[in-house]
């Protein structure tokens, strides 16, 4: 389908496609096994200016444009969901600064994130605070010109490898959700260390670690927006970043579909290509239709954000939920087309199934996305 992208957007898509085919795909299996951070590929992505796609031009970026970010993320994810999330998670960690940073904070942090010299990470999740983000226990106590952070964040993508962290901590426990605040924390700050690196089912090229704050003293000027704005920062950030997760899921689904169609053509059984069987063709047709429907949702949501639509929580949740459910279904079906070979690690398809699963879980489980959509429907129904 022609999505009528601009010349610049087509250029971004082609560039990301080239990087994906020449640099990401050949490295995918290696990093899936080693679980090392793919710095060499990140460097190529950085040198191609793709980290600039979520940063304003005045701070060295290419301008904030969610459609552009989704195009790049989709293409990179087609080749490897793990390497792509290293990139996308930097956008997630950067959005709080782009959306709520003051001039001084933007000038200090954004240029290095735009050039990809540094990557970012976002820290909200804690062992006891997953879907219930308001249950976070990490605290930030103000002392003069400093805040003292104490607590533990876990499952933090890019944790340990990122240089710039945006972290949500409680500044006033009595106020509940309104007592949370957002901070910028630099790697290397005394009292800020990293816990174990998680051994994951999928997206193994990306790093996932605990962030440990032990009397970690950060300058008060690292507070984003105002005290008590932590959850607003988080919600606005997720509204911007969810289409990116959706694009990641979309890319994984598209990549799996392409591999399955190619394999079906090559694979001979009963004296002919299995792609000549209606059973296989119908599977491929359903997969392709669902992928296209997900794509339409992802890009219409991204475009709405770029056009300045005010309330995008519902659309953003729909895109993330639908695209990730499609990714899960399509990758499993793609593996089915590969048959027994698909179950073996010698073939690339089983990795797509593993990489797809996380997209239904992180940045809000798909059940939480349904809550967001459902709640808004019920609210709107009450208005009539």
């Amino acid at each position, binding site marked *: 389908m022609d999505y009528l992208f601009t*010349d*610049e957007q087509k*250029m*971004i898509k082609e*560039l990301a496609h*080239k*990087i994906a085919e*020449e*640099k990401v795909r050949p490295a995918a299996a290696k990093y899936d096994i080693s679980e090392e951070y793919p710095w060499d590929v990140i460097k*190529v992505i950085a*040198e*191609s*200016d*793709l980290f*600039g*796609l979520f940063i304003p031009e005045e701070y060295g970026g*290419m301008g904030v444009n969610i459609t552009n970010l989704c195009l790049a993320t989709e293409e990179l994810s087609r080749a490897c969901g793990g390497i792509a999330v290293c990139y996308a998670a930097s956008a997630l960690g950067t959005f709080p600064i782009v959306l709520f940073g003051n001039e001084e904070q933007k000038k200090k942090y954004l240029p290095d994130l735009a050039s990809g010299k540094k990557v970012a990470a976002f820290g909200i999740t804690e062992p006891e605070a997953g879907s219930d983000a308001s249950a976070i226990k990490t605290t930030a106590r103000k002392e003069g010109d400093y805040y003292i952070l104490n607590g533990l964040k876990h499952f933090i993508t890019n944790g340990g490898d990122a240089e710039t962290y945006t972290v949500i901590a409680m500044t006033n426990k009595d106020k509940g959700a309104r007592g949370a605040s957002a901070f910028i924390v630099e790697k290397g700050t005394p009292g800020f260390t990293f816990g174990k690196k998680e051994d994951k089912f999928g997206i193994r090229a990306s790093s996932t670690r605990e962030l440990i704050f032990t009397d970690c003293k950060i300058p008060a000027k690292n507070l984003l927006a105002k005290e008590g704005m932590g959850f607003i920062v988080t919600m606005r950030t997720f509204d911007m970043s969810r289409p990116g997760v959706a694009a990641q899921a979309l890319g994984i689904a598209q990549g799996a579909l392409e591999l399955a169609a190619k394999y079906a053509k090559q694979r001979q059984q009963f004296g002919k290509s299995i792609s000549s069987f209606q059973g296989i063709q119908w599977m491929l047709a359903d997969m392709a239709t669902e992928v296209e429907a997900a794509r339409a949702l992802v890009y219409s949501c991204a475009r709405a954000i770029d056009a300045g639509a005010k309330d995008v929580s519902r659309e953003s949740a729909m895109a993330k939920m639908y695209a990730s459910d499609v990714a899960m279904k399509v990758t499993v079906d793609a593996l089915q087309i590969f048959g027994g070979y698909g179950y073996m690690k010698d073939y690339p398809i089983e990795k797509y199934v593993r990489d797809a699963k996380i997209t239904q879980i992180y940045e809000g489980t798909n059940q939480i996305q349904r809550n967001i959509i459902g709640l808004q429907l019920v609210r709107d129904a009450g208005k009539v």
Partner: protein
Amino acid sequence: MNIIVCIKQVPETTEVRINPETNTLIREGVKSIINPFDMYAIEESVRLKERFGGKITIVTMGPPQADAALREAISMGADEGVLVCDRAFAGSDTWATSYTLAGAIKKIGTFDLVICGKQASDGDTAQVGPGIATHLNIPQVTYVKKVEEATDKSMRVERMLEEGFEIIETPLPALLTVVKEINEPRIPSLKGLLRAKSSKITMWGQKELGLDPQKIGLCGSPTQVVKIFTPPQRVGGQILKGEIPEIAAQIVELVRSEVN
């Protein structure tokens, strides 16, 4: 360091098909790309610019669509593109091509270095680079795999030979042809692509270059293509088995039967 890189747009295929009647390449339906060897030349020029500063001008001779090749080179970090394009240049062989490109380089004016890929993937002659150096009357170093040192007056490079390598120092200006071992061409940046899109490409024809009409195009090309054919595929050899004296006896027998 001011560098000129000569590139060629070629069909993207390793299996070039030839029209048996006209003995020309079948270009229909084949995407055009920059000759892969020229990508190393472009990359090396960008690396030298990063080390020493200066300006990179890309020159190509070809039809108007070769504009795309120049823009791709600009997206990788070159500064300007010159398209040498004129019906009068059509049918040029390697001699006329190198004469014409040398004419364009003279018109560009001052330069320290000319870099070419070692050969084009379609013609495979490896003659145009050396031809340009001859027409410009400057030193040439072919099959360069590494630039060791450079000053504004000289350059020390490693040449790749079939057995080992050779280190050569040449005064500048000079012409290098480079092999694929020299570097890994970069993927362009988005900023580079945007710059390439809006760059103005200079177009020069015979009118601008004012070359000797007897030395350009088909009439300036002494090469005569008599016949083009695909060499017959080599058939598999024969493996002799057994102890050494037995094999020796078999060889003697084989030679004898061949002689008879």
